[in-house]
């Protein structure tokens, strides 16, 4: 049986298409903590765009 191995590159693509915070969480699910930490800025940029609170 094939097992999907999540990759950082896949996560980056999913983050670009994320529309909700749930999408963000799904995008990085399966990555290691260290891999997720490496995406901290991409995650922040994505969430900033979603919440759209320019204050």
């Amino acid at each position, binding site marked *: 049986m094939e097992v999907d191995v999540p990759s950082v590159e896949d996560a980056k693509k999913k983050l670009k298409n994320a529309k*909700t*915070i*749930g999408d*963000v*969480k799904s995008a*990085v699910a399966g990555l290691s*903590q*260290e891999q*997720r*930490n*490496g*995406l*901290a*800025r991409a*995650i*922040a940029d994505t*969430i900033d765009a979603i*919440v759209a*609170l320019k*204050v």
Partner: protein
Amino acid sequence: MLFPIYKLRPFYGGQFGVPGSESPYGIRMIPDATVLYVDSGHPEASDNNDGTDPTAPKSTVQSAINSTLLEPYSVIVVAGTVSEDVVTPDYATGPNYITLLGAGPSMYSPAWEGDDASTPSLDMRAVGWRVEGFRFYGKTSAAAIELRHTDSGANDIAIRTVIQNCLLDGLTTGRYGIWSHGCYDVWIVDCVFQLWHNAVAGGAIPLGVGTTPLAIPYRNHIVNCVFWDSDNGAIFPMNGGEVRGCMFQPTGYAYAMTQVLNTSIVANPGDDNVVHNNTFPGDYSIAGGYRPGAADAWLGNWADDTAEAEVGDNGITIARPT
């Protein structure tokens, strides 16, 4: 003749002990923001009040937060004693950018005792809330303040939180002071962390990071804080953050720290942080409780451990500890 029920927005003059209230427009942060008053000790306090009148305040903070009058940029002025556990709405429910302002007679008051020992006193789930002027009591199996970042509900993101001028008092039995699940752009400014004692089950951490479903804290600012007389300081792995102007006291009046400042931990590495203008007494090394991220810059701090190669003869740090 029947008149419509109509109430002007509150317009109060300065109040002693309330920073910013000397403004002729009251303490609101922008002209159309509502101000709600909470005072558990006021004889007229009731959650049936709408809270806009300081002579008829609400009796609980949660009631003010749940009020339909609350809107972005509202200020909730809190006096008395807070003996409740409070949960903010998530960011989607909102409102976001609310200020909880302690208005008591001393440096850090009112006291925020909370209620249940295993529930955070202040559970923050929305964007950009500011908490200022409180004395938070430690709890034996929960945090005084918990910053959510999707670890609870999907829309719980306490990004851009500001915690300013608060005392996080472990009272020797507290477990966690401020506990983050990875929120970014958080400011922790002018806060004091004291009396966090490892006798509590699991150990005491005044400022720490819990489970992080997304990432560890990013672009956080820990500025001008005091960590003293505790068994640990800040165990706060983060990326691209800063620790600036803080005073750490590894050997305190009653307690001595095992971990003083960790911007990285083995199980959850942090990186790229700037740590400067802090006071680092004692053994300036990883063994001494100072653990940096791999590419952190720990420059321009004061350390008396001039025997270390990372500390200049003048006591100024020139590299991260090893």
